[in-house]
């Protein structure tokens, strides 16, 4: 190939002349690199340079649907245990966690016995123990966690990230949401951002009973791949004919031609990336795959690793239901068991592949649970104080940031509002949450609205 060339002319030249098929594949790889160089106007998903250099390049968000109790997992409250049975600040009877807490790692983070495997990674975790949000009801809080507000329809976190950074693999969507909550469309929708930034959904229903499912329209029920290739060749002949007949740049037709090649390849990439059968027994075991308690979430974690490895920018996994109004002491351990080993396996795997350093892993639910007992064995919702954690991607390991009051009702030290949390995530990805804007309905919108303070203390 002669150099230098104008990328656009060259793309165009290839689209016109290369017959589809294997020759095209080689071209497509080159085109992907060229695409990166082109402006984002040409391809809205092309990788973009962040506002400033950053460690985190991709995100795995483990969303715990239904709000796990912070008081029984990552927010150790000795005073609550001491005051067990006494009257709470806002009525009710205080309930000290029935689960044992102990220190872990060199950092000595306090973590409960419900997360023995995650605890082994204590020195990778940054616990944010002073989270708060505005909504005490699940659906509204779930939406606020993902979009910043439950009042208006706004783009989700993943959409903003892909809008800000583009994605690395043109054969895959930039934002995947595995088994989002049943009412979870707002959690992956792009709202006013262009629809290419919407999350692609794989399965539904917080994945507790059914693992992630097949992607939509990912294969043809009546046609062999070979016959379909033949058909696509014909479609591309029609398209190239149109391109030939038109004069000058016809970006639209080029877009259609590319979309068929990418779609065709996605039919293979997607199932391949979702196929865990080629993994070693050790890997499967590490994720808890094959063990009925951990199989479902383990598969999703393993898939998420595969997706981010392949260049998908943002992967979210939802898992529920953590809404322990009753039978907490029975059901919370079951739920924790289902995710503990898989999460530990994921962290380990990422580390072994040297990916943890630039993969941001985020864990948490939409709010926390009350220090006082609800009924005999439950905790109610509380949005004024709870815990989320992050690991990898430029986050300091083994730190605990902020604190709730002595009983865990509300954040009192370094409170981190959900806007602050989001500003911090964007910062880790090299995006300035005040600069990442999109003009809609006459004004520039941000993921953090008019708020957002970065929690610098957890950034390495």
């Amino acid at each position: 190939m002669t150099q230098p060339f104008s990328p656009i002319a060259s793309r165009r030249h290839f689209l016109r002349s290369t017959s589809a098929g294997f020759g095209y594949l080689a071209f497509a790889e080159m085109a992907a690199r060229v695409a990166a160089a082109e402006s984002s106007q040409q391809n809205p998903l092309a990788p973009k340079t962040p506002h400033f250099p950053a460690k985190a390049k991709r995100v795995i968000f483990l969303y715990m649907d239904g709000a796990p109790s912070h008081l029984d997992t990552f927010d150790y409250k000795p005073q609550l245990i001491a005051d067990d049975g006494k009257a709470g600040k806002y009525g009710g009877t205080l309930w000290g966690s029935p689960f044992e807490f102990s220190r872990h790692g060199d950092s000595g983070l306090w973590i409960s016995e419900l997360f023995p495997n995650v605890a082994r990674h204590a020195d990778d975790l940054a616990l944010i123990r002073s989270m708060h949000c505005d909504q005490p009801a699940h659906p509204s809080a779930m939406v606020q966690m993902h979009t910043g507000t439950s009042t208006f329809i706004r783009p989700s976190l993943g959409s903003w990230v892909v809008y800000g950074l583009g994605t690395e693999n043109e054969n895959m969507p930039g934002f995947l949401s595995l088994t989002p909550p049943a009412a979870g469309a707002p959690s992956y929708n792009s709202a006013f951002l262009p629809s290419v930034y919407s999350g692609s959904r794989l399965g539904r229903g917080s994945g507790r009973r059914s693992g992630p499912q097949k992607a939509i329209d990912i294969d043809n029920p009546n046609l062999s791949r070979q016959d379909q290739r033949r058909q696509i060749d014909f479609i591309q002949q029609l398209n190239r004919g149109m391109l030939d007949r038109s004069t000058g740049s016809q970006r639209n037709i080029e877009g259609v031609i590319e979309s068929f090649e990418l779609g065709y390849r996605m039919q293979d990439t997607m199932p391949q990336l979702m196929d865990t059968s080629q993994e070693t027994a050790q890997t499967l075991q590490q994720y808890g795959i094959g063990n009925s308690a951990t199989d479902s979430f383990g598969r999703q974690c393993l898939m998420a690793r595969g997706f981010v490895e392949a260049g998908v920018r943002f992967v979210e996994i939802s898992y529920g239901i953590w809404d322990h109004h009753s039978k907490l002491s029975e059901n919370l351990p079951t739920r924790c068991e289902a995710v503990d080993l898989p999460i530990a396996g994921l962290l380990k795997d990422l580390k072994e592949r040297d990916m943890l350093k630039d993969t941001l892993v985020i864990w948490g639910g939409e709010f926390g649970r009350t220090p006082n007992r609800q009924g005999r064995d439950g905790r109610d919702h509380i949005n004024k104080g709870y815990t989320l954690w992050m690991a990898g991607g430029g986050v300091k390991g083994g730190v605990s940031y902020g604190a709730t009051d002595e009983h865990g009702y509300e954040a009192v030290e370094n409170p981190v509002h959900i806007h602050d949390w989001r500003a911090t995530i964007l910062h880790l990805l090299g995006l300035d949450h005040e600069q990442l804007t999109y003009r809609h309905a006459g004004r520039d919108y941000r993921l953090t609205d008019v708020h957002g303070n970065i929690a610098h203390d957890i950034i390495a």
Partner: protein
Amino acid sequence: MIIRSVLCAFVAAALLPATSGADDFSREQIAFFESKIRPVLVKECYGCHSDRTGKIRGGLRLDTRQLLLIGGESGSAVVPGQPAESLLFTAMNHDGLVMPPKRKLSKQVIDDFREWIEMGAPDPRESAAALVKSTVSKADVRRAQESFWAYQPIKETQPPKVDREDWPKTDVDRFVLARLEEAELKPSEDDEPYRILRRLSFDLVGLPPSLTQIEKFSHMWADDPDAAISKVVDHYLKQPQFGERWGRHWLDVARYGESTGHAVNLTYPFAYRYRDYVIDAFNADKPYNEFVQEQIAGDLLPAADDETWAEQLVATSFLAIGPKNINDMDSLKFRSDLIDEQVDVTSRVFLGMSLACARCHDHKFDAIPQSDYYAMSGFFESTNTFYGSQKASTNPMVQQDSGILEYPVDAPSPGQKIYTQAELSDLKDNIATLRSELGQGSRFVGIQKRIYIGQLENELAGLDENGRPISFCMGVQCSASPGDATLLYRGEVDQRGDVIPRGFPSVLSTRPARIDKQTSGRRQLAEWIASDQNPLTARVMVNRVWHFMVGQGIIASPSDFGATGQPPSHPELLDFLTARFIESNWSVKSLVRDIATSRLYRQRTDMNEEAYEFDPTNSLLWRGHPRRLDAESIRDNMLAVSGQLDLKPPHGSEIANAGFVRIRNGVLEEISNGVGDMAGRMGGGGMGGGGMGPSGRLQRGGPGDGAGPGTRTQARGPGNGMRPGGDNMGQNGGGGMGRGEIQRGGMQRGGRASAGGRGNSDAGDVPPGRLDMVDANFRSVYLPQARNETPRSLDVFDFADSNAIVGRRETSNTADQALYLLNNPFVLRQSKAFATRIADEAATPTQQIKLAFRLAYARLPQTSELRTAKALLADFNGTEKGLELLCQSLLASAEFRYVY
């Protein structure tokens, strides 16, 4: 004639009671509060009624003085000086409400509260002061009034002189050509006739031209191109499909959706009436100024008969169909957000003005002080919105419920069932039995039961005494106590500033509006917006129509005529067309005709490097804008080409069929039984159960506030209880449903049975959902429009998001579209039908290929295309499969979905 008008209202207090400030109390009184009252409030009440814990049950917060006085859904919590009138006090005494819920406070505490209220409820817990200083001065407003183009009166403009006198066909062309000549650019050549016809056909009716039309048009074109276009335009304007096409454009702008959206997504089963109203309005060429007025204040306009009244009432669904977070616990905030949404749609849709930007502060770019927002929101503060929902008292997911309006004409929805006397009494018995069983079983089972009882009770409320369904619609009514809005500092409901008299944006008014304080003033708002003198309303609509016809507006941002929007590319043309539009009695059809018959509309879309260099966005119109068909045209095009298209509109929609239900996982959760499938959900609380969902119909009773005072005839007053007598309206709405030019006779339930029952044995697969309706053959505009659950066939091609005002759709090219076109069951079905059709209608492969090309592209294949198509057929040995693949390829190709 009856009006059992408004069934239920949930209105938070609109006005803050006049209160004393903290300074007015003595030190002793404050000390009394601190020692006797505050600790009790914190301990006993804050758990459910404060921002400290985030819980705001019943919309009541007790953690600031202001909010305690405003109260929640049931009214003021405390009336200073009057314990017997104070709900907080009566609830403590278990008189009516029972608080705290589980036990009674000691007599000593109750006595303290009595004493405290009697002394005037001294309370130092002030919300932050609401001192608001506007940064937009009167001079700023005046300057904008005088200088900003959009606020200027519409100027009389004359078509300019041009050099190339032979090019313009209409005055519109002269304006465009003059700008091109100024820039030393040339317009493009006329396109080929088949392409012009295809463009016209898609633009006017959203469908491809038939083979006969193509034939006829090419002959007429050869004779006289102008006459050919004129004739075909007249033809399309008369087709009922015109209203379907242009109505859908409006539905984009009006953020039409058939459910609440947000995380708890409940259906609006009567929203479809608004859809049909819009389609009819465009077909009837209803003057746009009337169309506007009806949507803002149709409930208040005089109506000659029930049909007209019904139509006007349905028009106000415009204000009710927006997305709503009915799970929001804070009813003050919910109401304030609802009003905000109404201010936003009203100002952006009709005026192209982003007034809602001034909710929390002065507008950052336009001369809109924050007070303008509250002047406008007063109209909606004085309005009750009826969107219809399940009852909050029986369904814990519903925090903000609403009644619904009775439709003045007997025309039940297709989903409403007729009950026999026996079924009716069964229903009543069933409710009684279930009620008697409450209290048994676990809390969770109790919740499920209550939801089910609520559904049955609603079902019952939707029936008359003979078991016949009552007809309902969404819409608005005036509040019984209209009033002005209070400015909220930073938009926060507990930080109240001045009361702002209702009025219009100051930059558009020369003098203050005089609103009769006894009315909502909504009718005046409607008249002001729809006035010939309003500089924005007609311009905004003209620009919207231009956008849809030409591909890019004269103002490229159709819903933003403010400083952040685009300036007009052809300001004189905009004014010229606007003046004509008003003169034509606001006729959209005339405007469409004006554009369709212009020369510029015929231009080729080819690139011209030199012109591109100078004007890359083609704002001067040196060529036609190449356009991709929108989602519904792509789907309808497939159906038309395959011969499967059913032009008969279905009655209602799939959402109407389902009634009041929750939508999750793309599934309409209909009533099955009381306890339902718990779907693995744990515990009650806000999370609720998986099996909950459906509800029957509505809540009735309660005082209707009917129409606004003095605007309706007396006979239409609420509650003079006779139904229209002796009608013969069947459940399927037979003759009574015939509307306008469209016969919407018999009920067609679309693909319900098949789509609903479509299971898939492979648990790992993703079966098309019921709401995707892959088996439906009617036009896309009638597909169900649940928010966040757009049918895949539309979603994949950038359909309008019903959560937003969409004046301009995106067009993307994605791999997902390719996957859809290659593999989706709807596309496969259309390809098969298309193949069958050409096999039936043409004998040889060559003829078949030619026919397929003519149907798909409105042209014959070129030699090379014929050759490659034949090669494809040969590769599949001339089998049916080959023909199907050929047909699918045409549907999937770029030319099928682009209008060039």
